[in-house]
């Protein structure tokens, strides 16, 4: 059996002074251990709230979230969380920050990894003097040096130039390859994560709308192109008509009539955009992403 890295049941979060609106509502999903998961959704969808809840930085208003089989607070030694603003101590130097990382995580600290990620950062430079991209690099060095079982990264690549982005994504993937680290990365830019992630959570309007293996989510959908016609019995996610041509993204219910439609598998971007443009489309979780289910290891 594979354990769950994160399991949320009816999870909800409300911020004070936000006219009573829910930042996150009724979220139930499961992230199996060992996956690299893209947490995607538009700005303000609830991605950061979800990560902060999993990290134990926020207390849920309703529902529960379990991390590595326990409460987020109990799992703190086994996970690393890099928040969006990359919090570091501004008065420390780079070297002192890495030293603090080693001192605070004596059981698991991996100096070589931390040094490799920190790369060419001048070790005697003050954190205050670092650029946004350099701070990101240092924050990731701390997070990876801790050698966590679960790595939560909120918009990790936002401040990085393309070269650093590629290099750090490569380092994250190497970590996942070698230690089966579970990684969750949020972004509103899908292309940043496509290719690196094998699992997907689409959060939109405070709810989880898609969850599961990227390949399975894609395979469950079909892009139908053909005459303007009812696509029953398939579940319509989005349908658009241009002249006599109708393009419909459906969730298949049984076989597709290919005498009427040209059927193709959507790209990940097509799948996500279609869902974001159609807030009323029903949510879909693949079996491994459903909370409260133990799924046998494949």
């Amino acid at each position, binding site marked *: 059996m594979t354990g769950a890295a994160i399991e949320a049941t009816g999870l909800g979060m409300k911020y004070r002074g936000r006219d009573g609106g829910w930042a996150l509502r009724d979220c139930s999903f499961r992230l199996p251990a060992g996956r690299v998961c893209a947490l995607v959704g538009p700005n303000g969808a609830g991605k950061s709230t979800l990560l902060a809840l999993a990290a134990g930085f926020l207390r849920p208003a309703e529902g529960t979230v379990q991390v590595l089989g326990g409460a987020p607070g109990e799992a703190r030694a086994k996970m690393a969380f890099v928040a969006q603003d990359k919090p570091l101590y501004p008065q420390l130097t780079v070297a002192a920050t890495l030293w603090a990382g080693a001192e605070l995580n004596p059981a698991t600290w991996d100096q070589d990894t931390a040094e490799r990620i920190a790369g060419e950062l001048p070790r005697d430079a003050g954190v205050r003097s670092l650029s946004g991209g350099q701070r990101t690099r240092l924050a990731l060095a701390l997070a990876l040096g801790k050698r966590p079982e679960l790595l939560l990264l909120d918009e990790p690549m936002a401040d990085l130039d393309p070269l650093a982005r590629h290099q750090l994504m490569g380092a994250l*993937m190497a970590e*996942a*390859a070698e230690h089966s680290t579970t990684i969750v990365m949020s972004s509103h830019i899908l292309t940043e994560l496509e290719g690196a992630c094998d699992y997907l959570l689409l959060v939109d309007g405070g709810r989880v709308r898609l969850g599961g293996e990227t390949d399975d989510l894609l395979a469950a959908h079909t892009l139908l192109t053909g005459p303007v016609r009812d696509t029953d019995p398939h579940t319509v996610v989005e349908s658009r008509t241009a002249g006599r041509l109708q393009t419909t993204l459906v969730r298949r219910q049984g076989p597709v009539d290919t005498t009427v439609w040209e059927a193709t598998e959507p790209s990940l971007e097509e799948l996500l955009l279609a869902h974001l443009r159609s807030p009323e489309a029903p949510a879909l979780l693949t079996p491994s992403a459903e909370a409260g289910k133990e799924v046998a290891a494949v």
Partner: protein
Amino acid sequence: MAESAAVEYRIDRRSGVATYLQIVQQTKQALRLGLLEPGDRLPTAREVVEATAINPNTVLKAYRELEREGLVEARRGLGTFVTRTLGGAAAADDAPLRAELADWARRARAAGLEKDDVSALFTAVLDKTFEGDQAG
């Protein structure tokens, strides 16, 4: 650390070809060109993902496919090794199949077909011949 691997993969995210298939195809191309020979070690999943920033499972999926086709073999704790070459002889300049194809191409041209027509015809016949086979 063993000696460095004999191939390096280039991943084109905009090619529309699934990433694992790109690895399969590039490995086969290297086998056809003799850049990879039996006994050579493929890069480890870690080496590939560190250089390309793709998901480790994608590499493993590609290697499983190559193994299923009998081209490579995973040796526990050592890595994945090439077990045989591909095509080779049939693609050489003096091979009979190549000569027949060259002859056919000349006749197609003599019959007044343009290069694009010949290419389309060849692709159509190729697709028909290999219809139903596993992609890759």
